[in-house]
């Protein structure tokens, strides 16, 4: 696992020095959010907030995760990673973790903007909201990281990543939106319990699947 830490550390140092992924991701989220607000009736917008939040997050997030693999292609960095004595499963865990962190930072900004633009009231149970988001981000990162390793090698990669991930992401979208809606309406962890359990199961299954299957995707 120390290999995973090293790669995660490398990704985070790179991100702290350039702030490329986060700034691009946040800006993309702002633009998608603005597009939504112009397309919607501002009156009922607060009710649509959970849906807007997750759709914005997913489409911007797909770009960010694809990018996390594209940067490795420069100067043959990817071959360096593959040649390093790091287990492939650990490589997946590190990439997924760095994506979780970048997406988590961006999600905080997105939630703030959502509250500002759509007039969403502050939640009564902030911890519950945090839990929904953490579980949603982990599940999304697990699945998207696994498939970004595939799409980065394909010619139509911008097209293929959403095609590969969106159908499989349906359970996460349903559960994350429903749980967010309950929590934003003042619900607690217990009232969103069933959705959170499915989300947690989703996270465990796809993190484990990614950890085990990643080796099959990156072998040369």
């Amino acid at each position, binding site marked *: 696992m120390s290999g995973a830490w090293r790669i995660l550390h490398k990704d985070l140092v790179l991100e702290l020095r350039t702030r490329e992924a986060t700034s691009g991701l946040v800006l993309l989220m702002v633009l998608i959010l603005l597009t939504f607000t112009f397309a919607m009736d501002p009156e009922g917008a607060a009710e649509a907030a959970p849906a807007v939040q997750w759709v914005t997050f997913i489409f911007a997030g797909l770009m960010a995760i694809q990018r996390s693999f594209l940067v490795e292609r420069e100067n043959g960095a990817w071959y360096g990673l593959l040649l390093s004595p790091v287990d492939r499963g650990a490589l997946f865990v590190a990439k997924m973790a760095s994506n979780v962190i970048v997406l988590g930072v961006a999600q905080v900004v997105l939630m703030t903007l959502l509250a500002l633009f759509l007039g969403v009231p502050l939640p009564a149970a902030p911890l519950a909201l945090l839990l929904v988001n953490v579980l949603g981000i982990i599940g999304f990162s697990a*699945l998207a990281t*696994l*498939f970004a390793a*595939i799409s980065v*090698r*394909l010619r139509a990669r911008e097209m*293929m990543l959403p*095609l*590969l991930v*969106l*159908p*499989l992401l*349906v*359970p996460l979208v*349903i*559960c994350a939106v*429903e749980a967010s809606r309950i929590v934003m309406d003042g619900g607690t962890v217990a009232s969103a319990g*069933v*959705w959170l359990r*499915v989300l947690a*199961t*989703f996270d465990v*299954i*796809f993190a484990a*699947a990614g950890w085990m*299957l990643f080796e*099959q*995707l990156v*072998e040369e």
Partner: protein
Amino acid sequence: MHRRFAPFADRVLPPAATIAMLAALWCVFVYVPNERIQGAVQRIFYFHVSCWWGAYLGFFVAAGASALYLWRRRVEHDWLARAGVEVGMLFCTIGLVTGPIWARPIWGSWWTWDPRLTMAVILWTVFAVYLVLRSAGREDPEITRYAAVLAIVGILDIPLIRISVRLWRGMHPSVISAPPGKGGLDDPRMVVGLLVSSIAMVLLFLWLLWLRYEGLRLRDWLYRLEDRMEEAAR
């Protein structure tokens, strides 16, 4: 394995599937009685439900064969996986078309976001992407591995999709598991009709799976022949 199985499949599957399909058609149009409330429209049920056998069998065969391929790296398993998805998609599409034909007169709308319908359409998209991924003519070995991973992850997703769409909303009739007299198959002839249709569809599925498998095997053989000709020409 192939050599022993091939004559059996070639000789038994086509006539068996044909006879079973004719029997199923007879059952559906002649043997079973009209449903009391829905009338003749209900007869589409026998083929509609049976189709899902083919779809789910195809997808599960594909996932199993994909796992075997990743483990053993034998190209035969990849042919089987691909054939499973292709034939499964055919049955899934027939199911998705016959459903709305029934739903329009009975529910009054072509489509609803009922759990089973939602699940079916999500599965259809998952494996449609599988076919898009593999749409290149002659593919690199890594695409084969990618497709295998997609088929496995797709099957892993099924229980999660099932749970979440059920929690999300619920109007599809549960015909087979319904208690007697409450929307189930009240007439024993209806049970026979469903059983015969299901057998016919499973046999048709096996036959088509076999044909696709053979097609992929021959295509691979052709590719290798092309390679040898190119080498010889050099």
